[in-house]
């Protein structure tokens, strides 16, 4: 702390402001949704990219490539398909930028393109596992049979890498129908309407699948988190 204070005191005020700005800009937190400032910045980048500024489009790619790969990977669970879907999504976004009317955020528009690309590949590989139908009434396998306390916060009981492995293995076990909806709604933060639009199902079907996905995940996490169940 002493060294940091000395170093800061020896910097002129103007330079300090620039240093803070540089640090803030160069260390974005990938775990947070873009702030209002970032959203306005996104709007400027889109406008520049639309007018032919390649650097602005590259900046948008740099900003979202990791998230888009996460999305396509979470949907397809196949690295080759995920990479192809991501590449095609960015190429389509570039080609159709003039058709993006900015009635939604660029990121949301991009997610919809990427989700479509990923779903196309998933449906090709597993044609009978991603239906457009709503689950049948009476399919009650998501109703929990037994409920046990997880005890003190599981987030504190597990190391970050251990928690990451648990979450990854559990989401992998979800049927694709449910996983796709859960990923779009709860990992990527799309609205019910946007999710319905991206998957091509009704909003009622999104809600129904989301309920089942959340309860199935809870049930699977229960194996790891229940107080007497720590491996």
């Amino acid at each position, binding site marked *: 702390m002493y060294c940091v204070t000395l170093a800061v005191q020896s910097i002129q005020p103007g330079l300090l402001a620039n240093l803070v700005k540089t640090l803030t800009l160069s260390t974005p937190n990938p775990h947070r949704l873009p702030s209002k400032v970032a959203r306005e910045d996104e709007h400027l980048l889109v406008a520049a990219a639309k007018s032919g500024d390649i650097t602005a489009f590259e900046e948008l790619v740099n900003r979202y*490539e990791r998230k888009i*790969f996460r999305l396509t990977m979470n949907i397809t669970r196949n690295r080759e398909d995920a990479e192809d879907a991501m590449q095609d999504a*960015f*190429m389509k976004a570039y*080609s159709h930028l003039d058709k993006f009317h900015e009635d939604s955020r660029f990121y949301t528009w991009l997610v919809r393109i990427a989700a479509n690309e990923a779903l196309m590949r998933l449906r090709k590989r597993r044609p009978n596992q991603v239906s457009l139908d709503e689950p049948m009434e009476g399919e009650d396998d998501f*109703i929990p049979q037994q*409920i046990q306390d997880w005890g003190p916060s599981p987030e504190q009981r597990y190391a970050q890498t251990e928690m990451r492995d648990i979450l990854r293995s559990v989401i992998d076990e979800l049927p694709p129908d449910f996983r796709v909806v859960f990923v779009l709604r709860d990992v990527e933060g799309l609205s019910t309407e946007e999710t319905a639009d991206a998957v091509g199902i009704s909003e009622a079907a999104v809600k129904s699948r989301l309920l089942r996905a959340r309860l199935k995940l809870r049930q699977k996490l229960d194996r790891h988190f229940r107080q007497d169940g720590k491996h």
Partner: protein
Amino acid sequence: MNCDGVIRRVSSYIDGELEATVVEEIEFDLRECQDCTILVQQTRLTVHLYYDSDLVDFPVEVEARLHETLRRKIRQDRK
């Protein structure tokens, strides 16, 4: 509302999508039922743990191939 009704609405409940009268009925059940209370807490925590979670690695070679593909596409489009 019985526990089965709470389970079927837990998702809409934590998303704040239910009408006030339904919320009241659920919260009445939650005051009475320990299992339903735990279920709501655990479902909420499940959603929280996954939100914007970084469970997928982004390999440098995948990133490099993306940039190369895009550069090629942009060059082609400009010809």
